[in-house]
């Protein structure tokens, strides 16, 4: 790591493996225990995560006292073969601590929430088992001290995500979405695996310390390849362009899953990977610029598509895509942006989880209806939900002095400070994205909580039970305060200094106050536009068909699925069919044909074996005549 000595752990830090072991044990008990654990399974699942949170908190506190703020826990040798020596070790440093707290903190809240949300589901125990499995895998992902451990966690969260998206596997849509998520993740996973292979082939090690220490020795092209492959992995996991299409579909899973996995934690693993691999990206400007471009493009795609969706969870999903685009943009900026990106990751974890839980609460009250066109005027029916959701909303659009304002402005500033035309373009995109964010989120608020009531007769909106609202309140508080706390009270840049080094004092291209004002104005414009388009008018219960091509494109997610299908799926299917054809007719044909030719000719020759001795004798006589003829011919010649 940059400039800091990694010490062996002692005290409670030495037991940080408990962080992973506890949820894993919970998952094992719930999955293996079967129906016997039905009655108390959810409590056990919640308890393990809460315990992990407490341990994580204590470890973090202890970490502040450790010199260099980085400790290593050697557990055992994982893989030892030939030159490959992978030890299972944990690295507890400020970056992992940050993620541990986010994962276990938000995770614990969402576990509590799920107790209420899944109360009526027969398979609640299975749900908590998967959630625990996810938490364990995610903690392994962020705590591992080498890329292989990260990869194991990476695959673990992919598995848990798959299982949870398909939790209601009876629904074809959920099953399909899970498969889609799994396959698109796999594309990214292949990239990550290849990056690890290159590291091992070129450097002989996969530990963070080893790779980051000697990355400078590699050729530029190799480093760029590693960086791009890591980026591919990050894109797959974080739903970034061009692998963004799975994330909105993943909303088929239960809402707590959307909140925990597909908003707060797992999808930010890509950001973690890039931040963790900062030394690699520091060595390759090419890959870093690609990160920037992908962040900017995704940011815009997510925001634009979010504007046209009617499904409340899909809007939030595209919002997540867009916000993670911000984070990618930030970490792509290099040292100037790491802290800003991670700060936004944390605040986003709070308010987006809060928003999802709020959406879940709305759905809970509306009989699992997700179409916003059938909501309306819920503000008075669900007061707690409305307030907590509204605070999350304000934090997300960047209302001054709320969480999003602190962290998003920091990213926009960093983008502008990147310098030159590049900086202006990125900054402009980020500002535009902020305006779009304001528009679609205001639209969501207006359609859900204001205006006319548009729900059907059988629906009786009601507030959710306290076990669900309590986590929402906690997260709302976090949405309000997290930004201020992380930027002003406990500066994140100082906490992360051992990881990313001294924050350089950037020469501001535009004064921060000007940026804040401009962004606030743009956001206000977005809100106003939304009010003009949605708030003033009657919202049709069915989506209007006669709309502009832009809206149509946005409704279809900018044709991401179409592009995927026509560019990859169809050619892939054609290729497969062609290969199957070649295999059946060509390869099999040659093999079977040879066999059939041999078999046929042998059976035809076998017909000569009539069983009649006289036929055989005739053949012998024929041969004798030939021999005699040859002899005569030779001697006569």
């Amino acid at each position, binding site marked *: 790591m940059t400039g800091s000595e990694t010490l062996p752990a002692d005290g409670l830090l030495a037991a940080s493996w408990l962080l992973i072991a506890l949820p894993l044990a919970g998952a094992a008990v719930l999955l293996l225990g079967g129906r016997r654990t039905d009655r108390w399974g959810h409590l056990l699942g919640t308890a393990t995560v809460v315990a992990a949170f407490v341990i994580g908190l204590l470890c973090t506190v202890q970490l502040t006292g450790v010199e260099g703020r980085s400790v290593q826990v050697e557990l055992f040798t994982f893989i030892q073969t030939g030159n490959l020596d992978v030890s299972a070790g944990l690295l507890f440093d400020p970056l992992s601590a940050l993620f541990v707290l986010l994962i276990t903190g938000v995770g614990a809240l969402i576990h509590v929430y799920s107790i209420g949300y899944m109360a009526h589901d027969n398979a609640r125990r299975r749900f908590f088992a998967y959630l625990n499995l996810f938490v364990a895998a995610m903690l392994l992902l962020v705590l591992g001290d080498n890329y292989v451990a990260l990869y194991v966690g990476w695959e673990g969260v992919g598995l848990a995500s798959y299982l949870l998206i398909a939790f209601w596997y009876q629904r074809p849509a959920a099953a399909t979405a899970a498969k889609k998520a799994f396959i698109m993740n796999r594309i990214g996973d292949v990239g990550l695996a290849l990056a690890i292979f290159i590291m091992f082939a070129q450097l002989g090690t996969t530990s963070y310390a080893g790779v980051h220490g000697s990355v400078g020795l590699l050729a530029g092209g190799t480093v760029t390849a590693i960086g791009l492959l890591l980026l591919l992995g990050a894109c797959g996991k974080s739903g970034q362009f061009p692998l963004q299409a799975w994330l909105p579909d993943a909303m088929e899973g239960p809402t707590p899953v959307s909140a925990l996995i597909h908003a707060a934690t797992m999808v930010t693993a890509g950001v973690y990977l890039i931040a963790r691999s900062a030394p690699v990206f520091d060595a390759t400007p090419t890959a870093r610029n690609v990160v920037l471009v992908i962040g900017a493009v995704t940011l815009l795609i997510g925001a634009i598509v979010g504007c046209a969706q009617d499904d409340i969870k899909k809007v939030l999903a595209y919002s997540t895509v867009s916000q993670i685009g911000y984070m990618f943009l930030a970490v792509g900026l290099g040292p100037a942006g790491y802290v800003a990106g991670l700060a936004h990751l944390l605040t986003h974890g709070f308010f987006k989880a809060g928003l999802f839980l709020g959406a879940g609460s709305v759905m809970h009250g509306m009989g699992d209806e997700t179409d916003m066109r059938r909501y309306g005027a819920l503000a008075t029916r669900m007061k707690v939900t409305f307030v907590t959701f509204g605070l999350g909303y304000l934090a997300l659009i960047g209302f001054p002095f709320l969480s999003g304002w602190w962290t998003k402005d920091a990213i926009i500033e960093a983008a502008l400070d990147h310098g030159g035309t590049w900086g202006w373009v990125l900054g402009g995109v980020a500002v535009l994205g902020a305006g779009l964010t304001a528009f679609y989120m205001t639209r969501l608020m207006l359609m859900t909580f204001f205006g006319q009531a548009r729900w059907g007769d059988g629906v009786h909106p009601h507030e959710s039970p306290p076990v669900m609202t309590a986590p929402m309140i906690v997260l709302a508080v976090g949405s309000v305060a997290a930004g201020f706390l992380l930027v002003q009270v406990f500066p994140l840049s100082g906490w992360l200094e051992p990881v990313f080094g001294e924050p350089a004092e950037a020469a501001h291209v535009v004064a921060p106050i000007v940026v804040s004002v401009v962004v606030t104005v743009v956001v206000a414009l977005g809100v106003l536009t939304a009010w003009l388009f949605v708030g003033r008018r009657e919202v049709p219960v069915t989506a209007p068909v006669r709309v502009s091509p832009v809206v149509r494109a946005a409704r279809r997610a900018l044709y991401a699925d179409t592009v995927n299908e026509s560019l990859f799926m169809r050619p892939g299917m054609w290729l497969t069919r062609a290969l199957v054809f070649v295999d059946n007719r060509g390869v099999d044909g040659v093999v079977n044909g040879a066999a059939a030719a041999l078999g046929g000719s042998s059976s035809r020759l076998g017909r000569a074996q*009539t069983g*009649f001795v006289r036929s055989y004798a*005739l053949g012998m*006589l024929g041969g*004798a005549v030939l021999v*005699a*003829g040859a002899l*005569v011919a030779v001697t006569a010649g």
Partner: protein
Amino acid sequence: MSVLAAAAGSEVVIGTGETIVFWVLGPVALAGALGMVLSRNAMHSALWLVSTMLSLGVLYVVQEAPFLGAVQIIVYTGAIMILFLFVLMLVGRDSADSVVETLRGQRIAATVLGIGFAALVGAGIARATRDLPVVGLAGVQAGPGGAADGNVEAVAAALYGRYLLAFEVTGALLIVAAVGALVLTHVERQPGERRTQKELSRARFLGSDTPQTHPGPGVYARANSIAAPGRLPDGAPAPASFSTGVEPQRVDELPPTGSTGAERAGIRHSGGTDAALGTLGGATNGPTPGSGSGAPR
């Protein structure tokens, strides 16, 4: 050949007597061989082969191998051919080859190939042995004063001299062959398996429609030949009367009474028994075949 042979000095000139013998016996041997192949009856084949073997035996004698000729006639023609006849009488008596060849093209192909083979080998031998000298065996088996006291002594000297081992092995081969034949033809019977007279009788009368001999031509026969079926009183052939030992063949039969021109014209033919059947041929109320005890079995 003869010119060269005469020039060689030690040549034996083949005398006129031998030439005559060859030209007499050679065709006989050939005719015997052809007759053996061509005659349909296996018994005839065996007899034809005997004539060939006798001819060859004489030819051996002529060719200064009197002992071999004697063995040929006594052992071969005598013993072995008798063995053939024994087996023939045991198994092959009623299995005369039918005229129809079952394997398509076998006969034609065999004939063509045979003629080709004979032509090639004959031509080859004729070419190769054009200058064959005739040293003769006088040197090794001449009478008193020669190396041996005649053919038998010469053969014995070689057989019990240089070829002693082969001779002993051949003797062993003969014993093995004898034992082998015993083993092959021996029928293993479990004790008690032998059937009693009662059981044999039962099997005979219950197992077949014809416990007795097949019916002969009977009084209604229209031909003397064994190959013609017996007749039922109404003139129809009796199926059970067909001899299995005789292959089916066309036989001249007398027409039934009143059915053909000869009878109607009143011409009486020799041996004709139909005159006695005159009224039966047109009878409509006589016993019908197989309907009662009147029908022969």
